[in-house]
């Protein structure tokens, strides 16, 4: 059993072999119906997928109360993910620090 108060947050060594990226990637392709342009594109996506498996494992260590793993975004780089699936424009500082015209009144929270 690991000490729950002291979590290892760096890689534990032979991760790729352990994770068997090829088998996981084939399963990912079937599950999410992925097809790629050619063998080169597939090889690239598999390398991204392998990096995301390592990332999911890192997230699992840093976020132990959730479950992290393969999702439909596992063949996207963080940059591609950000460009395609996020999209919150950076708010102005005024909107974050208050003092703007739509500031909500304080509500009672007891009872």
């Amino acid at each position, binding site marked *: 059993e690991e000490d729950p108060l002291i979590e290892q947050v760096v890689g534990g060594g032979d991760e790729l072999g352990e994770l068997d990226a090829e088998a996981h990637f084939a399963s990912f392709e079937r599950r999410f119906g992925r097809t790629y342009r050619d063998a080169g594109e597939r090889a690239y996506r598999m390398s991204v997928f392998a990096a995301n498996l390592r990332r999911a494992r890192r997230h699992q260590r840093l976020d*132990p109360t959730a479950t992290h793993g393969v999702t439909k975004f596992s063949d996207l780089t963080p940059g591609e993910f950000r460009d*395609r699936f996020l999209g*919150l*424009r950076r708010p102005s500082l005024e*909107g974050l620090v208050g003092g703007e015209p739509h500031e909500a009144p*304080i509500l009672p*929270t007891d009872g």
Partner: protein
Amino acid sequence: LPDDFDWRERGAVGPVKDQGSCGSCWSFSTSGALEGAHFLATGKLEVLSEQQMVDCDHECDASESRACDSGCNGGLMTTAFSYLMKSGGLQSEKDYPYAGRENTCKFDKSKIVAQVKNFSVISVNEDQIAANLVKHGPLAIAINAAYMQTYIGGVSCPFICGRHLDHGVLLVGYGSAGYAPIRFKEKPYWIIKNSWGENWGEKGYYKICRGPHDKNKCGVDSMVSSVTAIHTS
């Protein structure tokens, strides 16, 4: 305040939607908040259009004229609320369906089904956020989505998470005790509706910890806004 609260159980939350490969999260957060506010005002859940905002909302930040809502290239929920106040409101999803890309604006004022009365920005305070959620319905919020790419389920509570906000989502409720075996204690959490389809997360939803030891995790408390709707017949 109640210990647990979930607007899904009270009929104020529509089905989970999928924004596809388009940076339009801000429009889903906005429509979700107005769907809830409209439900509170009328007792009827109306599924509202995001595509109207993607196509027609080019509202700019009052303090930064170059920062404008821009379809799949991004936007902000508060400027979208301003757009809705100016334009008159939102059509239904059925009348103006989602396409996942920006098209020419086809807004038809005669088909508006929900109107914004007012909107507010809520202070960075978890009790105030909870109180506003209970009083005004689901809230439009922003979050740092770094852990969401690999999230499958459970209560997310990363030891380290940036507070740079990059994703718009909808706060629909909170719980007092999510199971957290590693830390040997029950963790309170927020319930967040996302717009990446039902096959992501917990049937399209995300849970993130809250409470005195986990304030503003991943920036979740730092940009919260509520909206009220006009009672229409």
